[in-house]
């Protein structure tokens, strides 16, 4: 070829959105998360996989600022383009970030929704929190989002406690995405749903993530979910990241004994 190797960093020189540096968390002598570092870019979906107790949920809480690390730090590039260490943000700033630029999808929709108020209010509430005050526009936008997550608009005035599990989860997603966040954390979003409901939700998520160019950190123990949704995976065991890379590379050509065990444990369809 003759030509010299291109500087591989020049190929795509946009800035990371979220950066974790040597993140650690210990409870007394138990290390739940050890020395985790990575950078997440806009539009990138990162799956954190591993079994219960591997530290993946702790990591998600550290990344989203809900838990203070014992060591290391998390920084985020704010909408003004400035990257800031989350631990230096005031409580109000952090809450604002959570209401606008971030989403958090819980495994149990009841944790992310207000079960007794209407679906429309669940979605509209996020908009009011960022200053929307025109009732008609809020309701229109809420209806719009219900449609996007495939919920019949006729159900807008019903409370989510009257919804099925799959509908609740889709409503939780609408509530999170209505403010057009750039980063969404997801904790086992398809856990506890029937397989057919899971497939529909995954397809919906996949399309929304691509359309909205969302960056996502998704925690899952289901490698099929990681394969369908994520660009990259991190495999965790005992609080450490033991293998990381392109999703299809890690799943088709796993290197570490534990990753090989996880991959070989998938039942054929």
């Amino acid at each position, binding site marked *: *070829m003759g*030509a*010299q*190797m291109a500087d591989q960093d*020049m190929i795509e020189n946009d800035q990371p959105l979220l950066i974790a540096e040597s993140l650690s968390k210990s409870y007394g002598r138990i290390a739940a998360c050890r020395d985790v570092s990575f950078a997440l*870019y806009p539009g990138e979906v990162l799956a954190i996989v591993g079994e219960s107790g591997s530290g993946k949920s702790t990591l998600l809480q550290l990344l989203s600022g809900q838990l203070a690390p014992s060591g290391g730090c998390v920084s985020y590039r704010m909408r003004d383009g400035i990257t800031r260490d989350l631990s230096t943000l005031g409580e109000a700033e952090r809450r604002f970030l959570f209401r606008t630029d971030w989403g958090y999808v819980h495994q149990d929709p009841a944790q992310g929704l207000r079960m007794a108020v209407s679906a429309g209010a669940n979605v509209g509430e996020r908009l009011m929190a960022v200053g929307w005050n025109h009732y008609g526009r809020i309701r229109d936008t809420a209806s719009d989002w219900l449609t996007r997550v495939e919920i019949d608009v006729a159900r807008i005035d019903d409370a989510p406690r009257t919804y099925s599990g799959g509908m609740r989860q889709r409503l939780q997603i609408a509530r999170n995405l209505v403010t057009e966040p750039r980063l969404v954390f997801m904790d086992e979003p398809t856990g506890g749903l029937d397989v057919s409901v899971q497939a529909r939700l995954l397809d919906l998520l996949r399309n929304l993530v691509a359309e909205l160019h969302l960056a996502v950190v998704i925690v899952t123990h289901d490698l099929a979910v990681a394969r369908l949704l994520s660009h990259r995976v991190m495999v965790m065991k005992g609080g450490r990241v033991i293998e990381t890379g392109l999703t299809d590379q890690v799943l*088709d050509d796993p290197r570490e004994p534990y990753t090989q065990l996880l991959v070989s444990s998938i039942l054929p369809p």
Partner: protein
Amino acid sequence: MTAMIDIADAKKTFTMHLQGGIELPVVRGVTFHVNPGECVVLSGPSGAGKSSILKMIFGNYRCDSGRIGIRHRGALIDLAIAEPRQVLNVRRSTIGYVSQFLRAVPRVATIDVVAEPLIVNGMSRADAQARAGSLLHRLNIPERLWQLPPATFSGGEQQRVNIARGFISALPILLLDEPTASLDAANRAVVVELIGEKKRQGVAMVAIVHDNEIRHLIADRIVDVTSFAAAA
């Protein structure tokens, strides 16, 4: 001429940790290049490592050592050491891959499965679907099937959907793993035609084909993979 693919001394071994750490050598010393408009066919018996080499070029399998040089947007990038994001960029705008089997997403209609690579690269949905439709037509997939997900199709139909998805983009490199394996004569001829068109557009291709007749029709050069056999 500037090669599109330039592989030097690439090596791949699997270590099977669940089988007591057995080392399974696949290939070593893989060295060849592919120019624009050229179709290189990999030959060798089953198990010689042909598919593994394609997967290494696509960045699906990692290399233990050596270089997988790919010309990407005018610059040379080594996929053996590239960051995941770079590999994804290369796949989006440089390398297409027609695998042996379609890995379809549940619920997605055939027409959208085929149109997706164009939409990802910024084409409008309507235009992408129109192109997908004409390709499906050429590959004899009846229009009544286009709105259905391909999961329930026959093996040959799924493979043609896969081929349509692989051939729809104007990517400068195309990897073909047995693209004609379960097709009838008429559809094999369509695939040979499509490969000819890609050559005239300057696309560099690496293919695996067992059918001798097809191989003669498409191969500009044959690379014998047995020479890369890893010493057991």
